[in-house]
């Protein structure tokens, strides 16, 4: 089993049982206790758990705000977390940034702690999460709430973006394809993303590895519209080659600890 799969399994157990035990987990996954402790360190850093003697418990506050902030783990949750960490490293003090909706962009928000930045977003969950974080100024655009999500959409989003300029914009996409470019779910999403592209110094696409080779409903543009792409190391080599040869910076997270 891969380290990431194991982490996701541990999270599942945590959600179900609220607490885990190191010895028990090491037997379940047949790995050493050292490995499990290291996994738990990671989950603690990510804010999922509080470590206890011989194990860990699920962090209650995470659970309480889970309805807004932490929807149940979807595909590639750990990979999205890693993307969030690396993408946040690209943000410098004093930057104004745009964060689009989506789990991956919310992971960026989680890793902005300690930076002095202005964040413009059309995701109320991002606004909610960052509202009390020191040093971060948050601007939430207006707009219509998309049912069953925290994203804002429609003409009010465009109005909210009017006359704003950001150094870096992070947009997550549904599909990344060598021939078909970046794709999104809806026409509204494309209009917003295109507007964001106009107001951004650097347009950065974030997409976990499962998005590669996939195609969404509607096309945003060629792969060349991105100034940089933040993703995972597992993406096919042909994409790595394409981005490098087309002058697009490709950042991938490598968890070395």
């Amino acid at each position, binding site marked *: 089993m*891969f*380290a990431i799969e194991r982490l996701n399994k541990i999270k599942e157990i945590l959600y179900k049982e609220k607490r885990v035990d190191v010895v028990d987990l090491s037997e379940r996954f047949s*790995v*050493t206790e050292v*490995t499990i402790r290291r996994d738990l360190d990671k989950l603690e850093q990510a804010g999922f758990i509080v470590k206890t003697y011989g194990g860990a418990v699920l962090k209650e506050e995470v659970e309480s705000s889970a309805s807004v902030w932490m929807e149940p783990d979807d595909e590639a949750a750990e990979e999205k977390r890693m993307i969030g960490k*690396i993408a946040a*490293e*690209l943000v*410098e003090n004093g930057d104004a940034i745009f964060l689009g909706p989506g789990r991956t962009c919310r992971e960026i928000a989680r890793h902005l702690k300690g930076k002095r930045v202005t964040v413009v977003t059309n995701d109320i969950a991002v606004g909610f999460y960052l509202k009390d974080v020191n040093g971060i100024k948050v601007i939430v655009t207006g707009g219509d709430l998309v049912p069953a999500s925290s994203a804002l959409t429609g003409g009010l989003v465009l109005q909210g973006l009017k006359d704003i300029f950001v150094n870096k914009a992070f947009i997550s996409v549904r599909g990344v394809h060598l021939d078909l470019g970046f794709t999104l779910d809806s026409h509204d999403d494309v209009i917003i993303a295109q507007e964001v592209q106009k107001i951004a110094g650097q347009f950065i696409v974030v997409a976990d590895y499962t998005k590669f080779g996939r195609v969404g409903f509607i096309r945003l543009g060629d792969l060349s519209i991105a100034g*940089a792409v933040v993703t995972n*190391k*597992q993406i096919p*080599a*042909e994409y*790595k*080659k394409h*981005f*490098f*040869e*087309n*002058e*697009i*910076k*490709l*950042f*991938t*997270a*490598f*968890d*070395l*600890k």
Partner: protein
Amino acid sequence: MEAVLEMRHIVKRFGEITALDGVSLAAEPGQVHAIIGENGAGKSTLMRILAGVHVPDEGEIRLNGETVAIQNPKQAQDLGIAMIHQEIKLFQDLNIAENVFIRREPLKGWRGLHVIDWTKAYRETDRYLREFGLDLSSRRLVQSLSYGQQKFVEIIKALSQQARIIVMDEPTTALTEQEIHKLFSLIRDLKRRGVTILYVSHRLEEIRAIADKVTVLRDGKVVRCCDAAGIDLNELVLAMAGKDFHKRYPKMKVKIGKELMRVEGLSYGGILRDISFSLHQGEIVGLTGISGSERRTLSKVLFGIHGPFEGAIHLNGKTFRAITPHEAKANGLCYVTGIGTEEGLISGGTVAENITLTNLERVSRFGFLNSEKEAEFAQDLIERLEITADNREIVGNLSGGKQKKVIFAKWLFSNAKVLIIEEPTAGIDVGSKVDIYNIMNELLLEGASILMISSDLSELLGMCDKIMVMCDGEIRQVFQRGEATKERILYYASGGK
């Protein structure tokens, strides 16, 4: 004049990498034809094809108008092509004549047996030595000769094999001023004899002094071919450098922290002179230079493979006036060597063995190697670095990119703080290349520091916070990120002051 040598549309691929992409070249008798280009431009591959070391995938080679197929070095020799390599390939414990005539000694018939005619061998060798104004006896042992004199013996050897085309690869490397002078007069002598010389060099001043024609290679293609007379050196540098693609590199601005290593006034054996620099947390410092700049020697001295040195290395809060590889390692220094170097990998060993080699204590218990533990740690790193190999796979069978990652894994396993990384991406596929840059980012984010020794100028410009340019064992220039250009680096690297 009719061309003695013609290479037409030569293509050579190594796996995914196209080293030569339709190279054509023509040389006349008595011509010194310089072939220049950055490292990786394809110069050595082209010369190795001529010398029969590599066989081209496409294209044609013509000698005196006739198509030839050069399948191996012996055939090249029979066709009158000789190669003078950068490193001396003489038998040190034999004398000059024995080296010149080795494996093809002049024979005399004696009652039906072929017996080596040593009188003739010595006579001929002495004649050559005299003709080139070398005051040496053909009976002198090669090991008693200077480096430059040995180079001349190699040229004499080539001539005695009736070579009509001599390839010289960076012939002036490690030669003294006087010896270079002598080499040039020897080359002029060869020209008068109608011998064609292909002169591979980085040193532009030399090209102006000795070449008749210049071919510039870049990324496996000929980008320029012109007469050497009256040539503008700046123009050549520009042709060599090509467009600057440093925007594609995933450089991450990492906060620069405290100093991790400082080298002060380091000199070594008359080769390295007064080297000083420092490395900080989160910083990548580039080190570049042409062959003969001794940049590799520097990394070996820093890691304790070569010594003793003068000056000091400050590392991990301690000051070293001498250092062993063990001490270097114990104090958080590591040396990620280039692929295919003797210090790199045990190519017959498995991936797991190679990875855990640098830190056996971590996988041992009471002094016994725990192979289960070894496998677990190795497998973990294999996943983290996306090596996509089995930990039991033999390293020698892996691609260049994977081998390089195994070298990285080997050091990550030992928790190094300062990494000397040699040619991080030479000879590996683009996908692995991008991976390696991102692995370096991750190391920097964790507070490590990297000394990146590279001859890939785009990579240096793209990834480094600072670039140091070495020439003849000295640091000639230091550029801050943003100050350097390919042209400026090449200028100082090829001896500019």
